[in-house]
């Protein structure tokens, strides 16, 4: 056994638990009571893109799982050359990957994205940083853990997470059938309905319903709500990546005409006509979600990746007509609307049907996370905040992100207690609400688990149905 392997042996075998020594912030700056209470909380992780464990186990054991979400983008913005970017994802040799990025890691290792990696590899694999001499031991340590149960170990045992609300779907479907029921619960991913190049074929094949009008399309949407409405925890819309968040209330007659020209006859329609059809469909989904008691999650703010962001598309305040029109709907505004987080606080304070979701927020910009937490503490009722969502495709980095979230919330609550603005018991209550109870209530976790336990939808409900 090499010294390096010996060094990673102990943490690999250790069953980590809440209150572990790896921390983002020095525990000595935190109130011990607040810190301990926050550590004990079994978090409801409101947003992930995690694959099934068997997918992970069959993937190459390389650095992709640490960098793909999202630290790679910070290396790119630090100057990682384009050819190195391509090669990184083309190779499966972790040492080759490291050679490509080793000059840029020191420039970006302090960011939130990278800090989550450093905290994760320390806690999970006993590696304190990425260096020439730690890549091989890291990969060996990951290999030693790469066996059935690894996701549960990372998420439940080490990260102390109750369950993850996952935004991922099977082909043609809006959610995923899972082998980890109870741990993974799913959003209905409705974004493809609002694609600029709407491809109805997968949905028609999957549902067995053909579409020759907007009325047909509504029937298909209804079919998916009937399929997933009882088990899904929310609907999720990420269309801010390609269009503005201003959804007009378009009459069905106009939407129908635009839909037929755009989606059925593939005519070259104007942007306004296409958006009219998209707008109608999102309003329709909101109404169906309300019927099924499903919250509406909306991506707002910053774009993942590099080099294409259009800030006019993701403005939180563009959603206000929806907040006014649908008082019975429950809107979960994701990612703090970063960098427009001030707008989000004001909207969540003003509208009783708007909630703030920190998912992704702590690692985009940890300072923004702290500032929003401080503002939320003074501006919002304690039931309007969801304090953590990892937003990862790989479980390994979830640990580091939740570590930042826990420590950040502990710090903000510690400040409030020390300033005399909050009692310790109040701080404990706020922490429990933000990290667990608000999400348990909002997403009806126990009900959804029961529905999931009663049987997930069939794999392919109408495999032989002919279209048309």
């Amino acid at each position: 056994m090499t010294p390096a392997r010996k060094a990673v042996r102990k943490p690999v075998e250790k069953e980590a638990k809440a209150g572990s020594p790896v921390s983002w912030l020095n525990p000595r700056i935190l109130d011990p009571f607040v810190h301990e209470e926050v550590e004990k909380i079994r978090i409801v992780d409101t947003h992930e893109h995690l694959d099934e464990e068997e997918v992970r186990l069959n993937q190459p054991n390389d650095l992709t799982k640490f960098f793909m979400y999202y630290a790679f983008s910070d290396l790119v913005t630090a100057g990682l050359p384009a050819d190195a970017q391509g090669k990184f994802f083309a190779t499966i040799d972790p040492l080759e990957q490291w050679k490509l990025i080793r000059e840029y890691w020191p420039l970006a290792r302090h960011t939130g994205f990278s800090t989550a990696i450093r905290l994760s590899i320390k806690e999970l694999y006993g590696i304190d940083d990425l260096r020439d001499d730690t890549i091989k031991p890291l990969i060996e340590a990951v290999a030693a853990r790469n066996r059935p149960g690894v996701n549960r170990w990372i998420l439940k045992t080490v990260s102390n997470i109750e369950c993850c609300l996952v935004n991922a779907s099977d082909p043609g479907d809006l959610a995923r059938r899972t082998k980890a029921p109870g741990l993974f619960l799913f959003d209905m991913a409705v974004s493809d309905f609002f694609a600029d190049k709407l491809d109805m074929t997968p949905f028609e094949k999957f549902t067995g319903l053909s579409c020759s009008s907007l009325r047909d399309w509504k029937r298909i949407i209804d079919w998916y709500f009937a399929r997933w409405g009882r088990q899904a925890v929310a609907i999720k819309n990420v269309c801010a990546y390609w269009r503005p968040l201003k959804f007009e209330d378009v009459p069905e007659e106009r939407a129908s005409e635009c839909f037929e020209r755009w989606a059925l006859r593939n005519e070259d329609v104007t942007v306004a006509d296409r958006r009219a059809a998209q707008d109608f469909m999102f309003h329709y989904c909101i109404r169906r979600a309300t019927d099924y008691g499903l919250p509406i999650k909306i991506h707002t703010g910053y774009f993942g990746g590099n080099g294409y962001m259009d800030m006019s598309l993701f403005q939180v305040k563009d959603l206000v007509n929806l907040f006014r029109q649908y008082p019975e709907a429950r809107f979960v505004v994701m990612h703090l609307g970063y960098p427009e987080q001030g707008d989000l606080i004001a909207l969540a304070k003003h509208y009783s049907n708007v909630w703030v979701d920190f998912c992704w927020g702590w690692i985009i910009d940890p300072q923004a996370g702290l500032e929003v937490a401080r503002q939320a503490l003074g501006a919002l009722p304690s039931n309007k905040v969801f304090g953590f969502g990892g937003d990862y495709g790989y479980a390994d980095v979830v640990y580091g992100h939740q570590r930042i979230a826990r420590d950040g919330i502990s710090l903000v609550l510690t400040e409030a207690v020390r300033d005399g603005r909050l009692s310790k018991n109040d701080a404990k209550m706020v922490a429990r609400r933000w990290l667990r109870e608000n999400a348990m209530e909002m997403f009806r976790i126990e009900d959804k688990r029961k529905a999931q336990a009663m049987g997930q939808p069939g794999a392919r409900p109408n495999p032989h149905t002919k279209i048309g």
Partner: protein
Amino acid sequence: MKKKSGAQLVMLETESAGVQEFSRQARATWINPDSLDDAIRAEVDSIQVVDTHEHLEPESVRLGLRPSLKPFLHIYALSDMVSAGLPIKEAELFNRDDLSGERHWKIVRDFWPLIRNTSSACAVRLSLKQLYGIDDLRDSTILPLMEAMSARTSAGFYRWALRDLAGIECALVNITEPPAGELCRKSPDPEIMLYDISIAPLMDENIVLAPYEKASGIECGNLADWKSIIDRQFELWAPTAVAIKNQCAYTRSLKFDNVQESDAAPLFEKWLVRKEGATAPEKKAVQDFVFHHCIRRAIDHGLPVKIHTGYHAWNNYSEPSWYQPKDLTNLFRRYPRARFDLFHIGYPEQMDVVALAKHFANVRVDMCWAWLLDSGASLSFARHCLGALPINKVFAFGGDYGAPDCVYGHGRIARDGVALVLSEAVREGRMTRNDAKEIARRWLRDNAMEMFKVDSKRDAAKAAQMAEDL
């Protein structure tokens, strides 16, 4: 050590031996050193800062002026006083160069107490203390201040104020009014002053072509000629210039559409050749085309593209829709090989700037002027940068003054602010001291040395100076 009350303390302290010349001297400080990590503070104070943005006149101009309060209060502190109620006519009177210090003080004495809490005034007080041993502006200190300034008004004043006291390695200067027909000038002292190519005149609402025709020897009858004149300016100045600088956010929006040359050419001729009176959209189209052309030339010559974003200096005219950093995103997407330097943290849109610099590999953030505008916003901005941006994307100081007298005070606020943010990070356990030191060096010096190629530009400017002397 004598402490003053208040959050922003003006203190005197004696620096231990072993650090560089400027920091061996007694120093006025912004933040109580007790609030800072000792090792980080020592490191930050030892850094010879690259000052990424100044408007300094040549020293010879300054030496010809009589001592007055103008080097301290002009523009920024004066604007705060106008905001506090100083009548505009009084402010205009203050700006005359022929007034004495005593006359200046009579104009502002009722308003100085109202603004001495602001960052711009804090920089004044820190500078007065450090340069001339005067702790504040009062009836009793104006005459001693004028006498102290007179005693210091001699050749070498700039090096003393900038290098010896403020610890500035080099100031990157943007001349507001270049010589007729030129976009830059030769540095009178390349050791301490290097220049941007100022493309502001090309964005002017009232361009006069004649001086450029005369300087270049090219008669300008169409847009192609104008491009040739611009290209010749780039060829002339690029070897010694550190960047190009665009400050047109003072007169128009930062949305630069990609106007085709075939569309811009007839508009150029209508507006500037035939002088037929172009509409605002027609002028904007020509300006848009010219700025795109300048970006392409800047890429060819390896020059960063500095852009004024955010707050408007002076008072009572600001149009926030003109200075939005996010209006620049089409340029960031279109020119991945350009290197954009966003000035003034886009204040008050600094969160947009952080997000843009995080997302786009070709965008950097520049804190020039920012510590003066709003030191609280700057501290917050630095904290955001620490967690959101790679460490090579921040320039932490640019004085943005026309005279060197206040560079010390502004630099002091920047150093103490950076030291405070890094001290917090170390104390909270988010980074090690060595990491903090490296970040301080990058933010205050190394990033700018690399980005603006300070060493090679300085060599080229010295060589040009020697060739001229021969």
